[in-house]
């Protein structure tokens, strides 16, 4: 500070104007909100893994008829309860051998299966190929989940928007209804509905959705309340834009993060309910396979043929874990403060 640095004289020219332009260049390029969300999501390794796993499972379900090696409902009673066998590879546990009275016996030979027969995950008590049943079962469970979630959205989102937007007495009445619906344990409503309706896909979807929309409606209502007071929406209102237009143009886009995140938590919930109902025997009727019916069948034989339950249990758990984690990842991506790195 004491000795004054020697600087070439010409450097002391005033340069005001140019500089003001310079300033614009400073700063990281600004991304649009959605791009930013996507970038954050893809930086989250866990979320990416879950997304990949789920994509694979969804793809397999969509192309089940092409991928499944057998008809899931074709029975071959002679080939019942065969252990897993992967081609002619001799991998312990996957070679078609079974412990019988202390000896490892080739179960395929014993059942008199034609040479070359192999079921990767074995067969069930009716000789149906388990792998195919799991593929179809996953497909059915996912269909239930997606449909239930859709119905959830179709009821919950408009309900929440109307309740939050109208406010006042409408809101009070609508909230009372929500309160009552949510004070009955979900599952009991679902079970009651299943008793009243005929067992089957539609009934399950209706039964699950009839209580599921409540959470969505609550969240959407709370957000709508906040959004309603935002300036651009106030402006749109004072300008007399029709409510429908405000809802579709301003509200829904701003609610989308809430909707997407909540959806990720509704799906595992629906999958759980389906599995639960089928497990206690009032869900998907036989012979159709869902993850729930497979678990239920598997449980009956679990003591002796544990693989019959392990496979659907693992798939079910993977779907549940992956959707939950992906939901977390999405929440962090949409709202980085919430996780505060």
């Amino acid at each position, binding site marked *: 500070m004491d000795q004054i640095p020697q600087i070439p004289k010409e450097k002391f020219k005033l340069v005001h104007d140019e500089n003001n332009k310079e300033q614009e260049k400073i700063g990281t390029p600004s991304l649009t909100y959605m791009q930013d969300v996507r970038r954050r999501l893809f930086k989250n390794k866990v979320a990416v893994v879950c997304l990949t796993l789920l994509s694979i499972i969804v793809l397999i379900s969509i192309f089940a008829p092409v991928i499944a090696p057998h008809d899931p409902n074709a029975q071959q009673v002679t080939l019942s309860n065969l252990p897993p066998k992967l081609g002619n590879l001799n991998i312990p546990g996957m070679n078609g051998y079974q412990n019988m009275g202390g000896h490892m016996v080739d179960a395929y030979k014993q059942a008199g299966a034609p040479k070359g027969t192999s079921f990767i995950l074995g067969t069930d008590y009716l000789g149906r190929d388990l792998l195919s049943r799991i593929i179809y079962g996953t497909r059915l469970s996912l269909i239930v989940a997606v449909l239930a979630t859709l119905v959830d959205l179709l009821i919950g989102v408009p309900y929440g928007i109307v309740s939050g937007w109208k406010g006042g007495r409408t809101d009070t009445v609508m909230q009372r209804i929500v309160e009552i619906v949510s004070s009955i*344990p979900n599952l*009991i409503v679902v079970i009651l509905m299943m008793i*009243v309706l005929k067992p089957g896909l539609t009934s399950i979807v209706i039964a699950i959705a009839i209580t599921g929309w409540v959470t969505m409606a609550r969240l959407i209502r709370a957000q709508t309340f906040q959004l309603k007071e935002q300036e651009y929406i106030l402006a749109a209102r004072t300008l007399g834009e029709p409510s429908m237009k405000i809802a579709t143009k301003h509200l829904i886009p701003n609610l989308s993060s809430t909707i997407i995140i909540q959806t990720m938590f509704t799906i595992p919930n629906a999958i759980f309910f389906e599995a639960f109902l089928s497990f206690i025997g009032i869900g998907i009727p036989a012979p159709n396979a869902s993850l729930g019916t497979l678990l239920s069948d598997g449980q009956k034989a679990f003591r002796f043929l544990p693989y019959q339950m392990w496979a659907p249990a693992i798939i079910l758990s993977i779907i549940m874990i992956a959707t939950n984690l992906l939901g977390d990842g999405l929440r962090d991506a949409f709202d980085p403060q919430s996780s505060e790195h």
Partner: protein
Amino acid sequence: MAKYILKRILYLFLTLFIIASITFFLMKLLPGTPFSNQNRMSADQLKIVKAQYGLDQSVGVQYVRYMVGLLHGNLGTSFQFNNEPVTALIGQRLAPSMQIGAQAMILGTVLGILLGAVAAIRKNTWVDTLATFISILGLSIPSFVLAVLLQFYLAYKWKIYPVALWDNFQSSVLPTLALTALPLGTVARFMRTEMVDVMSSDYIELAKSKGNPNWRVVAKHALRNSLIPVVTIIGPMAVSVMTGSMVVENIFSIPGIGEQFVKSITTNDYPTIMGLTIFYSFLLIIVYLIVDILYGLIDPRIRLGNGGKE
């Protein structure tokens, strides 16, 4: 506060009334009668039985009767199970359900709080990752899957616990464990979020600036503030434990109300289904009420809400 509780109790009855009505009419919507598949009965016999249950009256009369019965704490009579009154069935079977339910809730909450707190304190380390993974497992694996696995390995294969039996504490261990996973996962996750929030709050900063060592910041300030909101998820947790107990009791052959409920469903025992539905709802509403009151008691901001001098 007293006024608030009174109001809540009033709502409780209103909600119960609505639930009972809905349940009643839903049951009446059912095609046929519960006896229609018992064609061993002659027409005369059927008539007698119907009269016995009051099913020969009009739906309106049946409804009024049922509601009046409810007021007297009468949930109707079972079609099965020796035609016992539903209240008696519940009475006999409440204790085992309550025992495993309470054990699971307490164990799950305590472990969940610990897990969540540790994860928050060690945020963004491997401890946090591990804790998060455990809580996600707890949240994601259905209790009935867990129950079957526990039963197979701990009871059947390794013979540490009884397979399916209900007598002493030993026999409650496995069902409790199966039911603990979900509350554990839920609480751990909630606690972590809550505590991470608290740990980054201004008053924690102030507590640190006072010279509080880290453990004291956590023990004196962070824990209490993050624990209070955990109370609010006791209600939803009770629901999930109830749900889980239905199958878990079934798997372990525990003579509880959950097992009863599933049995009634498979045997079309409508009065019992109805009675249990109402009973479950009642339990749940009570839990929610207690939680609300508890929250008011432990959070000074609510406790002294009206005395505040803002």
